[in-house]
């Protein structure tokens, strides 16, 4: 009984030495921390930042987005607002800018039924990133494949205003910058 107790105590004390050995070994091992401003994480592959618009293949200044609004509808937090201009253009003839921006006119679609069709043109794509939970439902719901995640890891700002983007303007600015 007594011997057993002493043996237990000794193994217990030995376990303390083993613990010290583990921490001691780790003391001399290289650090894991990445010293952020001086060095950066090597691979950010797969990082998904806020969404951005995908330009058309043939025209980098136009978005693939066809302004259907399904992303705005599916968004759980209501981060997305689409500003859409409705343009009426003749169905057959060449492109001719019709300046009729008033929606009332477009609504009377019964009258010029077959000759013109109403086209929805994206004016601005507002994203309020403050409320975004990055679920990716908008990207998935887009029928035109017009949305993707950006890889903007180092996004930071001083006010909420800085996280309200117009993605269309951002896309164009990026293209011009390149």
């Amino acid at each position, binding site marked *: 009984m007594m011997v057993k107790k002493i043996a237990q105590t000794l193994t217990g*004390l030995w376990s303390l030495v083993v613990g010290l*050995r583990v*921490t001691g070994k*780790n003391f001399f091992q290289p650090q*894991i921390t990445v010293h952020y401003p001086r060095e950066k994480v090597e691979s950010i592959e*797969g990082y998904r930042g806020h969404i951005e618009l995908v330009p058309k293949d043939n025209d980098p200044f136009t978005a693939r987005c066809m302004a259907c609004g399904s992303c705005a509808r599916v968004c759980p937090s209501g981060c997305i607002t689409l500003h859409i201009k409705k343009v009426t253009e003749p169905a057959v003839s060449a492109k001719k800018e019709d300046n009729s921006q008033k929606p009332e006119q477009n609504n009377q679609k019964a009258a010029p039924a077959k000759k013109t069709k109403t086209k929805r043109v994206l004016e601005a794509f507002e994203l309020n990133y403050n409320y975004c*939970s990055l679920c990716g439902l908008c990207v998935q719901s887009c029928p035109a494949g017009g949305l993707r995640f950006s890889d903007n890891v180092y996004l930071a700002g001083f006010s909420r205003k800085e996280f309200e983007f117009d993605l269309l303007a951002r896309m164009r600015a990026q293209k011009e910058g390149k």
Partner: protein
Amino acid sequence: MLDFKLDEIEQSGDFYTRNFQPTPEENKLVLNMGPQHPSTHGVLRIILEIDGEYILRAEPVLGYIHRMQEKMAEVKTYPQYLPNMGRVDYLHALAWNWAYAGAVEKLMGLEVPERAEYIRVITCELNRINSHLLWWGAYLLDLGAFTPIMYAFADREIVMDILQRITGSRLTYCYYRFGGVSADIDQKFINDTREFCKYMRGRFPIYKDLVTDNIILRKRVEDIGHINLETCRKYGATGPVLRGSGKPYDVRRAEPYSVYDRFDFEIPVYDEKDALARYLVRMDEMEQSLRIIEQALDSLPEGDYIHPKTPKNPKPPKGEAYFAVEGARGKIGVYLVSDGSKSPYRLKLRSPGFSNLSLFAEIARGTLLADAISILGSLDLVIPEIDR
């Protein structure tokens, strides 16, 4: 029935303190542990009545981060509610993802492609390892050891990197969709995961040397917080708490969902019923998860990662469905009632932590303050999951 008046609340103290029914003993101290206390893991509050350092009565007070998740479900469409699930239990987000997606799929009769099921199993188990690792670190922090949590974080980081590549998030995942997952996995993911499995196996001996075998830790968790099976049953405790009490009940085996019936894994069980048993169950579970992951990677089938005909705006037929999965903390259940519209009529989230915590009051009686913290930690609480 209710014997309080609202205007009394303003008068003195706090509603719950005044509602606390102390024991008739004398020379006692009523102590508020929390809502800001380092060992209550977030914002749990426990009203303690102590005699010296012995606890006479304990009463948890919940609701400090209650977010009314169930109401949110009723005002959102089915897919819109998906990201919420990652926020219910941020440590095992994918299990909650799965429980909700599974309930909707069950109601709609939607079939999930086999590849998607395998991906779900792999990612969910990776997430379980992550959850247990954090629990391990945080529990030792409760017991006064500072270093293990840093080692756990270093290992967690690897899993998070792996999961980030395919899910896009590091913590509050929203990866599962009705009928599959949101993105396919690639060869790099498979290689990384295999490498991680190998690496993690090499880490367990270090954990064992540093912590599990340590005499001080053993003395802190051995014979502490006995929960017998009857208590578990009466309170509906599940998960490692139940398995630490000697019952091999695991939803993955009891009501097999997805493809879990195809894998060969053990359910760790310990009969000691104390905090050490619960600790060891979780440590063993991590190894079993590695086994499942490796098997799933070996037999990963080709095919779709999401059902091609998943409706974008699902309207499940009227009816109800209950889908249970095994989370890191126990049985996660989602009870869904649909009236055929595009948002749920009623959604009930059965969180394992809620039931596990409710037995704390009973087992904490008569223990030391330090033991109560050890017990609380061994229950593995995630407060957002309990408060929902």
